[in-house]
């Protein structure tokens, strides 16, 4: 791992989350990707827009489905120095959600600011 992570370049990475959890696996496997990325000392951004906001909704209980509830893991990101989490305001309002509905602290930004932020990225990962 040493020589992989020690590449001396810091790029702006954005993980774009636009899909709801559980209906498809993308939210979970993106999160696994984000956790791995912590070892590489890059400038990591997580964007939650459209149905992606549902990934960080409080109160998830997957026991009746026999699936793994991975929402607590978003709270662990801070420990990996991944702290740039952005939620899009318009997406939030369309879904009747508020900042209190989320399991983690996020920065709520406008769609226009989200667009500007995306455009500054070096690498955009989406699923």
């Amino acid at each position, binding site marked *: 791992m040493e020589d992989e992570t020690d590449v001396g370049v810091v790029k702006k990475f954005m993980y774009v989350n636009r*899909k709801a959890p*559980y*209906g498809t696996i993308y939210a979970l496997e993106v999160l696994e990707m984000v956790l791995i990325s912590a070892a590489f000392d890059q400038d990591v951004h997580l964007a939650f827009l459209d149905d992606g906001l549902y990934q960080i909704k409080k*109160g*998830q209980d997957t026991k009746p489905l026999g699936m793994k509830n991975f929402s607590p893991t978003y709270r662990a990101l801070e420990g990996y120095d991944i702290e740039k989490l952005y939620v899009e305001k318009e997406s939030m309002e369309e*879904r*009747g959600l508020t900042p209190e509905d989320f399991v983690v602290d996020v920065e709520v930004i406008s769609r226009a600011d989200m667009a500007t932020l995306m455009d500054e990225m070096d690498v955009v990962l989406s699923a």
Partner: protein
Amino acid sequence: MLLHTVNKSPYERNCLDSCLKHAVKGAGILLYEDAVYAAIKGSTAAARVADATADHAVYVLEADLKARGMDAANVVDGVKVVDYGGFVDLCTEFSAVQAWL
């Protein structure tokens, strides 16, 4: 009379809208998986589901609500919350089942 099932988010896909345009009066509509978000009050999709309850029996699957942190108490008025056994019962009560994939 058909039971229509919808399992995709009303924001991501056209499945719910297409289903609503094709369900005849009296047909049943079951929302499950990511489609349960459509049944939550205060969302932009809720109005469409509320309208649908006038002509259709609309149901939402409890396990999928819970998994997604959605409170059954917050479901649009007139929408009935069912469990998997209830899903099975609905299939027997309607004449056939059409999945809007």
